[in-house]
Structure formats: structure tokens, C-alpha cells
């Protein structure tokens, strides 16, 4: 599956190949109304990764429903809306509208965006915050509710348990790590916002550890995200307890990577004589 914010609204990937081959697409974070996002520059390359400070630029949920949804709804893959807001009311507003869309069977509640001043990660780093927004969104949504967790916390299991307690059907993790980059020569930050979100292979070891901890702490399915570049990475996340994985930054490197991962995992199953990926989930040999 493709991670939110790294695959646009699916059309851009469909320019390369038929996205019906994919397990699912987590669409770009959507808010109630148009958001311009942060100022340029918004990205910086870092060792084995990158920082971004996009800040949830999107045209708002109504634009999505009127203009984008009709074009993509029959792509033949699961489409998941990534729901964002500055307040609980805003999260609920987006959720209610998505609830009406026949071809969207799940939402991902993003309580972990590090690039917005209000909302975002503020909800995702404390149990009460995470609980409050999950509770209200749960009331407004009939289908599958996935909550996307922030890694910028002392104990991610605690947050995972909190949202499970409020009726989340699954959790996805991790969103980006709050990081920073400076140009030593100009002495200026490389991002307009000073700090931004770190993604890519650099974060994989930490993301993997968090998925492992969370999968032991909750009963609902866990979706693994963070630096996945190839089939081996995907399998590691499944062994650590992820039922599925999302590929993010790797798409920038090569939009075909998800297809290669699917092939690579199939090959792995065959080589190891395993019937289905479900037999890998959480099967780390201790």
C-alpha cells in the first residue's frame, strides 16, 4: 500500500502503471478547507532520508469529493482518505463527508503530522488528545477507522492502546520524526519552517521497533510504515507484527517500488514455502 502524502491522489502513480495492482492507496492528507501548506523550501535531503515541511497542502474535502473522487473511485484498489484537522470538529467534519463516499471503505486519522501548527501531532503525542479525537471521529464514521500514530513520543504503545480503547479498527505507524537541517555555509535552516518530518530508510530501525512494541500492546491490526524500500524491509515489518505495510518516500526514488515489493514478497513466500503473508505476521523467531 502507498503512504499518505507520498502518492498524491493516486492519479500521479497511475501515470506510471495501473494502480489496481496495488493493495491500497492512502491519499494525500485532506482538511475541511483549502490549505496552502508551508512556504518553500519544503524539503531537504538527509543521510538515507529526507525532511519535508509540506504542511498538508490540499484543496479541501469538498474539492476532493467533487473533482478528484469521481476520477479515481473506480481505480480498482482500496482508496483510503487521510483525515486531518486543526480541531476535533474539523476532523469530524472531514470524516462525516467521507462517510458518504461509497468507494471509500476506510479512513486514516492523521494525528501525527509534525508540519502544522494546530492539530496534527498535537493530538497524537498525548493519550487524552489521541483519545478525544478518536472518540469523536469514531462516532462519525461507520467503516474502517485506522489511526496513524506519531513516533515523536516516549511510549507509542500507550497511545496505541488509547486509540484502540476508543474504537479504532487499526493503527498505522509511523508518521515522520520531527527533525531539522541547517546549511552550515549560509547558517540558515534548510526548511522554511525550521523543523520538518524525517522519512526514509534512516528511520526504519526505529519504526520497526515501534511496530513491534505496538503489535504486542494492541489486538487490532497494525500497519507498518517507515523507510520501506524493498521486499526484505516489508517482510521485516510483518515479522515485527505488521499485518500490512505502506511505502512512502521510496516512491520518490522509484514509483515502481511497490510493485517490486509485491513480487519480492511472493518470491519470498515461495522460497520459504509459506502459504500466505498472514503466516509471517508477528512471527519473529526469538
Amino acid at each position, binding site marked *: 500500500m502507498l503512504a499518505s502524502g507520498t502518492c*498524491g491522489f493516486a492519479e500521479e502513480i497511475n501515470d506510471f502503471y495501473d494502480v489496481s495492482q496495488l493493495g491500497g492507496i492512502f491519499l494525500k492528507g485532506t482538511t475541511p478547507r483549502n490549505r496552502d501548506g508551508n512556504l518553500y523550501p519544503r524539503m531537504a535531503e538527509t543521510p538515507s532520508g529526507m525532511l519535508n515541511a509540506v504542511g498538508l497542502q490540499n484543496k479541501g474535502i469538498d474539492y476532493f469529493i467533487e473533482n478528484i473522487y469521481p476520477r479515481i473511485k473506480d481505480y480498482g484498489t482500496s482508496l483510503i482518505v487521510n483525515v486531518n484537522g486543526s480541531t476535533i470538529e474539523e476532523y469530524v467534519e472531514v470524516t462525516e463527508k467521507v462517510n458518504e463516499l461509497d468507494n471509500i471503505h476506510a479512513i486514516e486519522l492523521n494525528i501525527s503530522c509534525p508540519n502544522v501548527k494546530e492539530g496534527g501531532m498535537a493530538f497524537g503525542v498525548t493519550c487524552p488528545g489521541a483519545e478525544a479525537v478518536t472518540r469523536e471521529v469514531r462516532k462519525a464514521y461507520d467503516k474502517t477507522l485506522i489511526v496513524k500514530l506519531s513516533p515523536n513520543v516516549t511510549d507509542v504503545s500507550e497511545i496505541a492502546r488509547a486509540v484502540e480503547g476508543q474504537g479504532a479498527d487499526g493503527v498505522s505507524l509511523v508518521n515522520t520524526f520531527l527533525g531539522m537541517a541547517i546549511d552550515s555555509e549560509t547558517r540558515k535552516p534548510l526548511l522554511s519552517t525550521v523543523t520538518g518530518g524525517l522519512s526514509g530508510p534512516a528511520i526504519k530501525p526505529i519504526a520497526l521497533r515501534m511496530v513491534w512494541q505496538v503489535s504486542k500492546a494492541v489486538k487490532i491490526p497494525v500497519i507498518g510504515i517507515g523507510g520501506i524500500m524493498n521486499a526484505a524491509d516489508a517482510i521485516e515489518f510483518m515479522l515485527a507484527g505488521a499485518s500490512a505495510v505502506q511505502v512512502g518516500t521510496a516512491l520518490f526514488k522509484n514509483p515502481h517500488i511497490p510493485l517490486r515489493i509485491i513480487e519480492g514478497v511472493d518470491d519470498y513466500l515461495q522460497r520459504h514455502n509459506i502459504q500466505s503473508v498472514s503466516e509471517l505476521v508477528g512471527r519473529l523467531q526469538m
Partner: protein
Amino acid sequence: MGKKSVSDFEVTDNIRLNATNFLIKLKAPGSLPVVKPGQFVNIDIKNSTEIFLRRPFSIFEVDYNRNTLSIIVKVLGRGSKKLTEIVPGEKLSIVFPLGRHFSYPDKNDRILAVGGGSGLAPMLFLAKESGLPADNVDIIVGARSAADHVEISAYNKYGKIHLTTEDGSLGTKGFVTDHPLLRNELKNYDKVYACGPEGMMKAVAGKAKKAGVFCEVSLENLMACGFGVCLCCIEPTVKGNSCVCTEGPVFNINDLKWQI
């Protein structure tokens, strides 16, 4: 935008043009689609995580018979340096064709193309593709000094080449905007195009705006994906924040929010 692809191109030539500029010719694995001036390729420089993201380069020349395309690479940092160390025979993973091209001039138009730094390639490509008689095309190329210029006299057949150098060591002394064609004669052109450092493009745009002449520039904003998904390359425009990689890199200056 149409279909895009990721393919392994083979490096057939890597020619040093001067101290910092290299001409790299790449052969496609199959037949090339039509590409136009202003469009770019996004290159995975080491097929590795060492230089993590791809690097974008404007298409400079294309040969549909041989299925090759060329780029001109100016060494700026780690990635461009590594790229210029590539040896013919090696493969490069390339995403293309990307971006929107320059508007083609109309028949009988007089055009001015202004290039500097890494912005030379699309200007020459445009001059060649314009379909105009050489008399109708002026090309100004600016550089710091004589040593920074590359040999482009072959392009004389597509237009008249005017060189400027900041130190006066070759051609007109000063910035490109100090060249008489830009200082006094802008009104003689139907279309002005520019690609190069931001300051240069803004200066050209300012003059074009004042003269009321149609002007397009090609931006080089930092890109993470190059195909419209990351929203990192944005530029404020009259339509809001536009993606330089899909809605550009070529913009009409009237659409930009530049203070000029």
C-alpha cells in the same frame, strides 16, 4: 501529462565542456516519446541510497533516430559531481518525460532566449526546436567569466548568439540584463524565454513585464519526487501553490507572484 516511465538509460558519452559543465548523452532502452524544450528527466544518480533522492536535469538535445537524449550538467554539489564522474556504458535510472514545455513561438515571431548557469540547456533546445529562421532568434548566454562559457557556436544556425560575462572577459560586460538587447530592444520581440539562476530570471522577467512582452521562465525549485506527489517543489502562483514539477517548470511570468 500522459504516461511517464522509469527506465534504465545507457550513458553513451560524457564530455567535459569546461571546468564545471559536462554533456552527458543517454540512450533509451526503447524508442523515445516526443520531448519538448523545458521538459526534464529525473535521475537516480547512484542507484543507491547514498545520494538519496533523484536529481532533475533539463533535456538539452534529443535524437529520435538513435533514441538518445542529452543533458548538460553543471557541478554544484554531491549529486551533480557524482553524475559527471559516470563512465560510458554505465546505466542510469531515469524518470521521464516530466514537466510542461515552453510555449512554441508562432510563425514569424521574433524570440529572445536568455540562459545562464545550469539554464543553458533548455534555451538552446528551444532555439533549435522553435522552427524559426535564425534571424528571428536571439540567444543571450551569461556567465561569470570567459572560462565559464561553453562552446555553443554550433547553435549559430538556430539563432544569433550573444555572450556576456560579469568580468568582461568575453562578450558584453555585466549581467545578461546589461546586454543592449535586454536593455533597450525588448519590445522588438514577441516572446522572451529565460532559464538560469533565480535572480537572473527575475531580472529578465522584470524587464519583460515592463516592456509588456510575453515571457516564460523555467524554474529549478528543489524537488523530492519530480512527478507531482510530494508537493515539495511548489511556487506561489495566481492559482495558489503550483507544483513546479507538473504545472511547471515553465511558467508565464504573469502567473507567478514574483516581486518584479
